[in-house]
């Protein structure tokens, strides 16, 4: 019932790992920039470390522009990285096209957001899936083998009976069915890792759940490691085992999904969870003004010149002088093992100072107050 294709392996084995992953995109230089020594770059992703484990879903949550999709493309080796390391089963890998790229892609597959754009409109489902199977050597032997492999793929993504879909063109399928074809195409390579970049955000609400359940089911049956990228933190709670929150190219909080969504520690995560639509909070007229200021204000910073220190400090209601100069490292939060936040509020020194009440250096709400607010 568990593994079908993949070799027996420890359940929690790290399959794909990013260590200190960094990506800077160059910006066209203007005349006055020629005088300065440092080249202008967009700091799209800075120092991101993620471990994708077999049979687990890791969610990467953030606003648009926070670098989540760049992380997916870096992990898929579609962009060369600026710094850091990507390790597949512990071995550092850097490929650029060619045979080695194909070998890599065989193990790490990417699913994109828009199933309307990711399938070629002039080709049938059969063509898309056959290509994937052929290229990755899973087409079986002879025409019968291919037919069987195709039927298997479609059955696996619950498009049954397969004959009904094999010769359909993408425009004949609904959004949910198209996304299933895209998933089937990724499975055609028999990968170990699935990178799903907002796989359901283009789909209708009533369809989303089906696709997410399908991914969950595939994870269990094929023991895949899945990276689930989303801006919807509520879906991360339901679908992912672990959640990592990104803001302006950096990771700000991580831990198991239930903890991160129910007891968010970092002020940005709190802003995110407070902003999510909440039917229980029926006001009929939006939020009151006090709550709005408490939640923080403003917009994400420019990534060409990101703020020094913590990148969230210009918007943070709890910002301290230290936040503007020193970058907070991931600091463990006490409530659950594995829960961490890159925020000075959780620095043992800050917490201790807050407790004894002697701290003159922390005039704003400290960690204890912060945790109170987060419940």
């Amino acid at each position, binding site marked *: 019932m568990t593994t079908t294709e993949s070799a027996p392996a420890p359940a929690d084995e790290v399959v794909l790992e990013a260590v200190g992953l960094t990506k800077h995109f160059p910006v066209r230089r203007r005349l006055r920039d020629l005088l300065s020594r440092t080249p202008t770059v967009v700091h799209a992703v800075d120092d991101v470390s993620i471990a994708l484990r077999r049979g687990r879903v890791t969610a990467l949550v953030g*606003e*648009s522009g926070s670098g989540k999709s760049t992380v997916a493309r870096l992990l898929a080796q579609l962009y060369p990285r600026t710094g850091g390391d990507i390790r597949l089963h512990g071995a550092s890998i850097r490929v650029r096209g060619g045979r080695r790229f194909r070998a890599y892609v065989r193990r790490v597959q990417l699913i994109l957001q828009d199933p309307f754009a990711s399938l070629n409109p002039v080709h049938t489902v059969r063509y898309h899936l056959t290509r994937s199977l052929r290229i990755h050597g899973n087409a079986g032997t002879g025409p019968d083998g291919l037919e069987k492999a195709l039927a298997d793929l479609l059955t696996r993504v619950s498009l049954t009976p397969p004959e009904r879909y094999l010769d359909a063109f993408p425009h004949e399928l*609904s*959004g*949910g*069915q198209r996304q299933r074809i895209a998933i089937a195409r990724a499975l055609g390579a028999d990968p170990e890792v699935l990178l799903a970049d907002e796989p359901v955000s283009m789909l*209708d*609400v*009533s*369809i*989303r*759940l*089906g696709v997410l*359940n399908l991914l969950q089911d595939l994870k269990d049956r094929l023991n895949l490691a899945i990276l689930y990228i989303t*801006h*919807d*933190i*509520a*879906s991360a*709670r*339901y*679908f992912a085992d672990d959640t990592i929150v990104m803001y302006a190219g950096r990771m700000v909080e991580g831990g198991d999904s239930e903890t991160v*969504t*129910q007891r968010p520690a970092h002020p940005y995560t709190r*802003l*995110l*969870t*407070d*902003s*999510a*639509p*909440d*039917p*229980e*909070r*029926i*006001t*009929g*007229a*939006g*939020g009151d003004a006090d709550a*709005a200021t408490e*939640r923080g*204000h403003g*917009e994400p910073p420019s990534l060409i010149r990101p703020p020094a220190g913590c990148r969230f400090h210009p918007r943070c209601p709890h910002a301290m002088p230290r936040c503007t100069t020193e970058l907070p490292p991931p600091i463990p939060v006490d409530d659950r093992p594995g829960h961490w936040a890159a925020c000075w509020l959780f620095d043992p020194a800050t917490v201790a100072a807050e407790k004894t009440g002697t701290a003159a250096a922390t005039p704003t709400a400290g960690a204890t107050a912060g945790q109170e607010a987060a419940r």
Partner: protein
Amino acid sequence: MNGKVLEIRGLCVDYGIGADAVRAVRDVDLTLHRGEVLGLAGESGSGKSTLAYGLTRLLPPPGVVSGGQVIYHPAEGPPVDVLTLSPARLREFRWAETSIVFQGAMNSLNPVHKVSTQLLDVIRAHEPTSTAASRLARAKDLLRLVGIAADRLDSYPHQLSGGMRQRVMIAMALALEPQLVIMDEPTTALDVVMQRQILGQLAELRERLGFAVLFITHDLSLLVEFSDRIAIMYGGRIVEEAPAARLYAEPLHPYTEGLLHSFPALRGPRRELTGIPGSPPDLRAMPAGCVFHPRCPKAFEPCDERVPVLGPPGVDDPTRAVACWLHPAVAPLPR
């Protein structure tokens, strides 16, 4: 909630003419009261945008309004049927009485014109007698109203962030103080944080200016929080209409229930997510009887034969209406 501002009666919208016509909106009855936020929810293809474009006569061909009435009640004067307005009257009606914030409004600004040009153009077109100085002052006020500094008036759209562009669109929609603002997925392209800021501001503006909002979205959780009443559309018909809190607490139509159990909740206990099996209906081949019956877990004998009418499910409960054989209407909705 004093008085009606817009009444839609039996509105039908077709795409195409004759035998090939596809009916995207069927017999929709909907009433909007002054100062109310009415949410309209449904999947894509359920006809919610078509309804909005139909009632403002903005439907691009081959869309045709094939029946019904859209009665608009101006602040002063007798009610008018929008569908029979002359072109000149329609021109006055649009924007001054009813304005629209379009889907993907961030891209509805003209990229080669400054914000000021576009904002002043609206005011000049509708109030040709105003002076340039008064128009400029008005434009500045409008930007301030939506929380943008007045000096951004001379920016081009690309110099503004997505959220700011969206706010400019809202400012433009409010420029002539309309009675009714139709918002077609106004925040879908925005992040949750920005979405909440804009919706909070919108709620505040509505308090202050007293316009009614027809809020169209597929995000039911958002509607429950922000609207007074919610109408659910499926397959071109309204299948349920109720005050937001009632709809959330006690959905009557199985489709509404399915929708409510489709989105994961961030707070509270982890609810069982059931979703809705199957896929939305094909408008070219609508199922007989209740359109939802092929996907409905509770379908029974009359569902595949007779179309349920929208009406209040009980005598004691005139605030809500549902079109489902499980809750047969006691009487057709009084209009």
